[in-house]
């Protein structure tokens, strides 16, 4: 069986500086992987390169998604094929209501896959159902995308999109940053509800705390642009106790 995501010896530069120095990672459908590591170790860079953000130069290695070369695809093509990045810092878009944004995005993905676009009433029914399960009031969706949203609301909005688009690969970049425990629990419940044998999740986090709520199957430690150690969920607890210092030495 082909892995859902294969990152092979990935080397990435940003503005002439190498950030990822040969990173390898394999994620199968149905699995939840956690990527942990100190600030600046390249976690967000990896997530951006997988999602197709411009400004990164891939100088070596490859990324395969369901066996296909992902690096060759435009970001919208990746999205339509099932790649979803929940942003560490979701942007605010004044003047575009969340409703319009969700409908345009969902229909663009469906169109790219050759599926019928949703008509407004069907779309509304679907959004209402998903928003309800995440405790997102419909009023919030009539405002500009993320405009005036609290940190928790922004992250819930990312989970809402995930639930609506039903991607096969979800990458969550620091979903816990800036969230209090209650907000974290709501968001994590939303993510857990999406766990399924067809779907994989890559949970990027600096802290072990999130992994109490989203329990991973595999944990990887990243340092200075490489995966320096992989293990089971107990690795996260170990890290909690010892900190990252030893791994910084490993990479140095």
């Amino acid at each position, binding site marked *: 069986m082909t892995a859902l995501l294969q990152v092979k010896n990935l080397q990435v530069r940003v503005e002439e500086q190498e950030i990822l120095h040969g990173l390898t990672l394999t994620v199968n459908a149905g699995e939840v992987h956690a990527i942990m590591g100190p600030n600046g170790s390249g976690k967000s860079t990896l997530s951006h390169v997988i999602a197709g953000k411009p400004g990164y130069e891939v100088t070596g290695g490859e990324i395969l998604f369901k066996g296909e070369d992902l690096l060759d695809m435009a970001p*919208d093509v990746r999205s339509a094929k099932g790649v979803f990045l929940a*942003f560490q810092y979701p942007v605010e*878009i004044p003047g*575009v209501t969340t409703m319009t944004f969700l409908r345009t995005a969902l229909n*663009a993905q469906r169109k*790219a896959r050759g599926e019928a676009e949703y008509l407004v009433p069907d779309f509304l029914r679907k959004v209402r159902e998903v928003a309800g399960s995440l405790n997102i009031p419909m009023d919030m969706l009539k405002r500009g995308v993320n405009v005036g949203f609290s940190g928790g609301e922004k992250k819930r909005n990312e989970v809402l999109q995930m639930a609506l688009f039903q991607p096969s690969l979800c990458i969550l970049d620091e979903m816990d940053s800036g969230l209090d425990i209650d907000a974290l629990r709501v968001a994590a419940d939303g993510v857990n509800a999406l766990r399924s044998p067809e779907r994989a999740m890559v949970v990027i986090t600096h802290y072990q705390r999130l992994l109490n709520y989203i329990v991973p199957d595999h944990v990887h430690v990243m340092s200075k642009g490489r995966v320096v150690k992989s293990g089971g969920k107990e690795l996260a607890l170990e890290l909690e106790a010892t900190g990252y210092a030893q791994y910084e030495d490993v990479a140095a």
Partner: protein
Amino acid sequence: MNVALAKTDTGTALGEAFALARPRLPGGGKVANTRQQAFEAYERIGLPNRRIEDWKYTDLRVLMRDVLPLAPAPDAAALSRAADALKLHAIDGVRKLVLVDGVFAPKLSDLGKLDAGLTIRTLRDVLEADDAALHAKLFALDAANPMIALNSAMMTDGVVIAVADGTRLAQPVHVIHIASGGLPAAMFTRSMFSLGKEAAATLVESYICADDAENYQVHDSMVIHIGDGARLDHVRLTEDSREAFNISSSAITVGHKAHFNTFGMNTGTIVSRYQAVIGIVGEHSQVETNGVNLLNGRQHADTTLVMNHVAPNCSSREVFRAVLDDRGHSVFQGRINVHQPAQKTDAKMMTRALLLSDEAEADNKPELEIFADDVQCGHGATTGALDDSLLFYLRARGMTEKQAQALLIQAFVGEAIESIVNDDLRELAISAAERWLAARA
């Protein structure tokens, strides 16, 4: 030099066009004399060129290559093409007043069941009637401006609308200029909208054309009076053909405790100039103007606004936006004059340009001339491209580059469109913007 000669030829050809058109122009006696004087005033300057400060960015001697003959009155075929165009642009719940090729078209207009206090006459009727006071009001635009002078000389028709004191019109009045797409021609129109004391109304002006209309020239003008305690909501949408010219002028006077809210959007024409002079002559009045130019290809659009604060304790807000692709060129000249008695004036002006191409150009010329000491006046400008991080967010959610751009452009334009109070008119403006975006994709 050949080019110089061609420019001069344009001016001469207009003289001939005037001579030819004269027998068709309504109004004898004094009106005819005023027209003659206006034409002479025009001829003294001719087509404005860049050496005239006010026309620095819009040199009509360069841009306006041909002089087109006065459009003939529309025949049955022209009216039927106009009726088709109307189907696409007209909305329900408004009173349509339609001018086809510069001539009022009663059959396409809604003249029935006039509200009490509303009177509508054609410019032709008014100019033919013996009404010197009304004629004086109609000629109360700046005669020294050559394009206004030319318009005064050549105007053939228009609508003269009056709303009586205390009348609050529920239904917007929609003046629609349609070019029927016959032979290339020029149309000269003038209209007037007088709003009595404590009256309220919504005036919409649209410039559209039949499907196959290409090269034509619109020369329009509008006189607006807003009485004491009155409120006018005004929407102006220019969707002329991509080869058309539209040169329009307006003079607006705002009385005491009055409110003028105006929105203008230009998505059509190859060259356009909208020049408006707003005089706030009564105290405690409020003016809001919002404008948007959506331009691509080689479209050139110039908006020149003069805000005259004559009376104290008034406020004015001008926000002007441009979305520019390809070699689109947008010009905004905004002048705020605060006269000496106009103490406590609060006047602000803002321009925002969104550049989608390196070759597009946005020119801003803000000017403040202040003779009162206790005022708050200011202007600002921003110019920039679409935000890359927003574009990436949208693309990461499945939108193509064009879709993501379109959504962000709609948001930018939407902020201006929000100033339109009436829901149906907001939709009308949104659909005009969507048509421009769809044509871009």
